[in-house]
Each structure stands twice: as C-alpha cells, then as structure tokens.
C-alpha cells in the first residue's frame, strides 16, 4: 500500500484554479518533495492532504484513508509542520507538547517519557520548562517538528519547513529531519522553494501553475539538462547569441544576466568559445546542473522570480484559513 496516493486532484478558489489535476503515488518510507515557486499550488495540495481543505475534484488517500470521507483516520496518522508557526508562545515547550499529546490520545503513562525523548531528539530537553516566546526561530521550528512526531504518525508533512530561517539553522533542521527519517523510517512529504534543500528528497515533483511538470529522482531530473551550464556576458549579447548558434550549433537563451547555454564537457568548451567568438566576452561562468537549472529548462524562468502569482497565493492563504 502506498503512503500517499493522489489521482487527478483539483482545487478551485471561487473560479480560480489553484491545483489543476495532480496525480502521484508515494511509497512508504520515501522523502518526497514538492518543488515550485510561490503560488504554484504546493500549500493548497498539502492542505488538502492534511484535510484542512476539501478538493474540488479528484481523490487523495493518505495512509490508506480518503482525505474527505475518512478525515479523522487520516488526521490520526499524520503529523504536520505548518509553514506559519502554530505554537502557543505564551506556554512552555512542555505545555505545547502535552496539549498535543492529549489531543492525539497518547497514553498518559507514556506521556512524560515520550515528550522527553522527542525534545531530546531536537536538542531542546534543557529548555523544556521555558516559555516558547523566548525561543529563536530555529528552536521553534525544531519544537514543532518534535511535536509533529509525538503521536508517531505514519506520514509527516513539512510545508516549507525552513522558510525564514538563516542558512546555518536551515542546515541543522535538515540534519534533524534526515536523522528522524533514518530512525523511524516514516514517509515525509515536503514542499520547498529552496533548490538545494530539495536535493535530500528521494523523488521530487516540480509543480508550476497548479500542475506537475516533472517527477523523478533529483539525479534523473538533472539529466534533463544537457550537460553543464555556461553563463556568459558579452559586449553585445544578441550578436553573440547568433554567432554561437551558427558556429557551435548550440541553443542559447537569454537569462536576465546574460546568455545561458548547455553543453557537454564545459571545461573544454570554454577555451574554444573564448578563442572563436568574435564578440568580446566580459564574463563567463560554468556550473554543474542544479535543480534550479531543471526548473529553468522546463519553464523558461527562474524559480525565485516573484510574479503576480505571489499575490494569488496571499489570496489563497486567506481562503485557506476560512
């Protein structure tokens, strides 16, 4: 049985479609990532899977239960870390954990032991009695992760778990998540728009405008990009592009900062390019394909470009809270 099974899932807010027919299966124990720009439909999908939103059409099974018809069974088997914080900051770490444990019917006898163990995993045991409002952003996130695991869920949802945290804390959070995954073998469904973080996933679905445009392992996705990526700036980009196309028969695309081309064996290609290109090159860089490049390749734009979609997302979030 798959941990998550989604068939042709759709969600409209009023008339505006946010998720336009999404399908995927996640086997148990997998770390599955939803990657896409803000407004792509990530949070909407996650909210449907954790029963906070009802889909307009399509079906979704989580831990074997239908998210619409068997809402309570689904809720008992999932843990969630929301994008926005969901802690009571005026209570202590222990209080927050205890309330959650009672809510999910953790046996009273096991409660203190389990809370201590969960807090120890995220290295917050010494802050058990502190008020949450005295915690840093990273500590609050860790506490939420510990809380989400308290009732031993089968599937853990992480919606942008590291958004708004500094790079060092982000790395620490990922270490915890990977450690937890190894220890418990639970299924993790996460969304992110940080490319580097998506690398930890076993498989990634790239989502854009409410549709999955690619779904594979990070390595396979990167193979979609033909070889290395070379980005160059020249004194006349238009002319340089024409020259590259006629001399090297390579497709060239402008990428905002300069020209972008994909080529096998970039190291050998660069000296040739500099020697043979009549237009003057002002700067040149080479890098291995990343998921960012995959996204650019598939959609023709960078993932972190904030467009009118981010406005749509604000609207959706307001809806989601109704």
């Amino acid at each position, binding site marked *: 049985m798959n941990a998550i099974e989604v068939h042709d899932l759709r969600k409209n807010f009023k008339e505006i479609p946010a998720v336009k027919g999404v399908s995927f299966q996640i086997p148990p124990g997998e770390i599955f990532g939803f990657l896409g720009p803000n407004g792509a439909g990530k949070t909407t999908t996650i909210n449907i899977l954790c029963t906070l939103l009802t889909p307009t059409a399509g079906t979704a099974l989580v831990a074997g239960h239908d998210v619409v018809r068997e809402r*309570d069974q689904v*809720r008992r088997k999932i843990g969630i870390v929301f994008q926005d914080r969901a802690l009571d900051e005026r209570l202590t770490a222990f209080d927050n954990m205890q309330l959650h444990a*009672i*809510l999910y019917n953790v046996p009273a006898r096991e409660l203190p032991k389990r809370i201590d163990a969960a807090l120890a995993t995220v290295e917050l045991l010494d802050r058990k009695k502190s008020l949450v409002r005295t915690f840093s952003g990273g500590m609050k996130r860790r506490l939420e992760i510990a809380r989400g695991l308290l009732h031993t869920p089968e599937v853990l949802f992480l919606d942008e778990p590291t958004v708004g945290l500094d790079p060092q804390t982000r790395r620490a959070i990922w270490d915890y998540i990977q450690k937890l995954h190894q220890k418990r073998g639970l299924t993790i469904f996460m969304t992110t728009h940080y490319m580097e973080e998506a690398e930890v996933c076993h498989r990634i679905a790239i989502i854009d405008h409410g549709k999955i445009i690619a779904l594979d392992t990070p390595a396979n996705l990167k193979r979609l990009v033909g070889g290395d990526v070379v980005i160059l700036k020249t004194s006349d980009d238009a002319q340089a592009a024409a020259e590259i196309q006629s001399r090297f028969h390579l497709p060239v695309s402008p990428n905002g900062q300069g020209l972008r081309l994909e080529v096998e064996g970039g190291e050998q290609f660069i000296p040739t390019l500099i020697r043979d290109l009549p237009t003057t090159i002002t700067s040149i860089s080479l890098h291995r394909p990343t998921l960012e490049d995959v996204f650019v390749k598939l959609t023709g734009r960078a993932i972190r470009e904030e467009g009118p979609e981010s406005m749509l997302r604000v609207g959706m979030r307001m809806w989601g809270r109704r």
Partner: protein
Amino acid sequence: MRNLRGIYVIWLRDVKRFWQDRVRVVVGIAQPALYLFVLGNGLGGSFSLAGTPAAQGGFVRFMYPGIIGMTVLFTATFSAISIVWDREFGFLKEVLVAPVSRSAIAIGKALGGATQATLQGAIILLLAPLAGVQITLLDVLILLPVMALVAFAMTSLGIAIAARMRSMESFQVVMNFFLMPMFFLSGAMFFTDRVPAWMKPLVSIDPLTYGVDALRGIVLGLNRFPLVQSVLILAGFATLALGLAVRSFQREG
C-alpha cells in the same frame, strides 16, 4: 470520547495560560476596585438611596455585586479574543487539524473562558470587607456556580462573535458594541425598578440583568427576581449563546 479529550485540551490550555498570567490576574483587581470605591463613593455622595431597600450601608455596598458581575462579564467576553489571536498566530490550525470535532473546540473554549472569568470574579470577593459586605462560606458556595453560569454564557457569546472576526480591532469594536449596553442596562450601578418606562424592556431583555440580580440577591438579599428564575433565564441564554458559538465554529476550515 475523543471529543471529551478535545474539550479537555482546549480548557486545559486556557487554564495554563491563566496560571502563566497570575500576576496580571492579581493586578486585575485594581480596575474593579477603582470602579467600586471611586465611582461608588462619588455617585453615592451625589444622590440619595433614602427610601430604597439599599439605604442601609451606602452605595458602595449596593454596587459591590454589580462589580462582581462586571468583572465576570469583561473577563469572559475578552477571553474569546484568543480565538482571533490564535488565528493570527496559527495555533488554531494545530487544533483544527487534530482528530477533534469543531463543536468540541467551541465547548472547550467556552469552559476555559468561563473558568478564567469565574476565578477572576472570585478574586473580587476578597474586596468584600472593604465594601462593607459580609459574605459567609455558604454565600460563596452559592455565588461560585452563579458566577460560573454568567461566565459561561458570556464567554459563549464572545466566541460566537470572535469566530466570525478576522482581526483584533474588529473584535474589540463589535464586542464593545454589545458589552457596554449590556453592562449599563444590567443595573450593576443603579436600581433597575426606577428607570424610565422606555428603558424597562431593554433592561429585561439584557441577560446580565438576571446575573447581577442573582448576585445581589445572594450577597445583599436585594433581588427583584427569584433566584431560580434568574438562573433559568441565564441557563437559557447560555444554551443559545453556546449554540451560536458552535455554529460559527463549524464554518471554520
């Protein structure tokens, strides 16, 4: 069973928060004391209670049960603000996604707010000797459940309103729109049988009138309605308000 658990958790959270704020709770006695002694002595000096059953003991004594009612009313309704707060800061989502029904959340919230307001009201009982009022242990045992009933009814009303509000500001504005008339018409600060004819129906539809009357009856023996009648009216209003609260919560998420 799972819903009882939900009710318990929501209630427990409010009680824990109340405990965290215990300093504020004690300092919270200052405002009612100000009303009671400054306003009470001021008003008492300006007009006479002669010829009324309250003549004995002065105006402060007469106002004292009204101040208990006021404290319960304000603490209860404003405890509901945490719903708006939670929405803004996300805790509501943690509860909404738990395997617990929406009605359980509303009922737990009503019980939590009612507990806070009853405890806050109980602290006002400490002012009794200063107001020249003698309260026996038996009085306290009757007072507490009546205060709890008023508190429960008023918290439910607060929740019914808060669940429809999206911001703190609008909650405060809407709440005051209901709260101030309820407080003024309840007779917390004056005799309701002496008001002009046009005010009489307003006084009698104000549920708090019966709360204040019951409290005044228990503390001073000066009630206009039998205690049982007041309690029944309050219980009826509490049921209605809780029904509204549950309904507005079921529209959530």
